[in-house]
């Protein structure tokens, strides 16, 4: 398979690339118009990961796991790459992907999915040795999609809608995912004042508490991302931890 990435729209370059297309391959070209944003409204950071996901006829995107397996049985992750341009109009640049016709889908559609792999440093996840992001916290369809086809050398171009904001549909935890750390803990006036670090932008962190270890329940008390602090009543609970999801 070959993938070609363009830094700017160019019909001439597209035409030149088509000249390299093998008659037995299907070419899929996709991009997003941008700005593609995370659920918190910030534009995708540079080199944020995008995935091209195939959806069965009538299916909706159901999210991906950290190992980039589709959550829904009628989805399939075809391609993943760190493509986001970054900046105010962060988007997925024009990408052309040649796929063997034997592996191309003949029905359903392909959709461009943006992942949220930001760590506590605000940067997109690094790549593993086999070309996948080390961790995925969330994913969302950008609404840029195109019908799948097995037709020979024809080109399918995915166009984006006016604004392709990504809204979190699934959040994941995994091996390699950063865990929140409790850095300070104090009882003040019957309340537990907890300070937390190591939070990533794509997850929401809440206090788990209870009187027995192993039986802690998630409360509605959310850690403030700005202060890294949360205050919870300590009258009943004896044990506390932090959960991000």
């Amino acid at each position, binding site marked *: 398979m070959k993938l070609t990435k*363009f830094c700017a729209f160019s019909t001439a370059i597209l035409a030149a690339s088509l000249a390299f297309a093998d008659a037995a391959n299907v070419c899929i070209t996709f991009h997003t118009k941008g700005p593609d944003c995370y659920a918190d409204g910030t534009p995708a950071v540079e080199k944020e990961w995008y995935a091209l996901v195939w959806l069965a006829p009538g299916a909706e995107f159901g999210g991906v796991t950290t190992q980039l397996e589709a959550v829904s049985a009628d989805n399939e992750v075809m391609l*993943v790459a760190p493509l986001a341009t970054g900046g105010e109009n962060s988007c997925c640049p024009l990408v052309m992907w040649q796929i063997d016709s034997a592996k191309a889908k003949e029905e359903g559609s392909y959709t461009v999915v943006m992942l949220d792999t930001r760590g506590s440093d605000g940067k997109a996840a690094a790549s593993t040795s086999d070309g996948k992001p080390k961790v995925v916290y969330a994913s969302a369809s950008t609404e840029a999609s195109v019908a799948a086809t097995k037709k020979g050398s024809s080109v399918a171009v995915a166009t984006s809608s006016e604004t392709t904001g990504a809204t979190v549909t699934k959040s994941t935890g995994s091996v390699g995912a950063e865990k929140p750390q409790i850095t300070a803990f104090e009882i003040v006036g019957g309340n537990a004042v907890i300070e937390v670090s190591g939070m990533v932008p794509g997850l929401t962190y809440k206090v788990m508490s209870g009187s027995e270890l192993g039986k802690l329940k998630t409360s509605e008390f959310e850690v403030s991302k700005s202060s890294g602090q949360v205050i919870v009543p300590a009258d009943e609970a004896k044990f506390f931890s932090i959960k991000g999801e």
Partner: protein
Amino acid sequence: MKAFTFFSVAFAAGFAMAAVTSDATFGVLKVDSDAAETVICVPWEAAGGGNVAVVDLVKTTDLTKGSDEAGTGGDVLLLYRPSESKYYGWALNNAGTWVGVAIVTGKGTSTAGTTQTLARGDALIIRRSNTSPSIYLYGQYNATAATAPTLTAGAWHLIAPPSTSGADLSLNSMTWNNVDGNDYIYLQSTSTGNRIKITRNKNGDKPNSMWVYRNWNGTETTDLASVKAGQGFWYVSTGATTPTVSF
């Protein structure tokens, strides 16, 4: 500009999704402190793990602050180091900070405490200027067993089981060895809150290895041979044998 870049297609094994949870769990233990002097345990570690500083173990709004920077009239913490045969002392000053002080104790005047730390299984004494029903001990939980205290024949020892259950703990549920029949324990009664003496049973209706409270007419009961949740006790070794205890 164009560039040819090859990317992998992800074909991966299934993975069960799970939220991310902090490695550490923190805990709070409520300890009765309505006596003028209470032996308290060290059930937790510091944030991030490891021994907790004496000044960080007990921090609650129920404590009595001193009238000045030196902690005059405030609550007091005493740490007994048997290897040094002396106490270290701290007082809670007007700013709510534990400051090192020299305090009169049963072994003379204490040394002003500084950065001494406590391991789980250690014991500490708190003297209250104005008693409140309880104080709170809190810190990071560690599931591994705490180190058992090392006892010396013929010496006094401060012992505090580092239980986090919040329940009173029977002395007879602990594992004791090489206990001299004349050894005894001072602890705060789980019934009255008064200081009582616990001894080895003498009556033949129990095995000669039970801790009991013997009342004025010689009646022995094991019911009061219990340590209040979060508290500790004085163990007095009277014989030549070196006793051991584990929790």
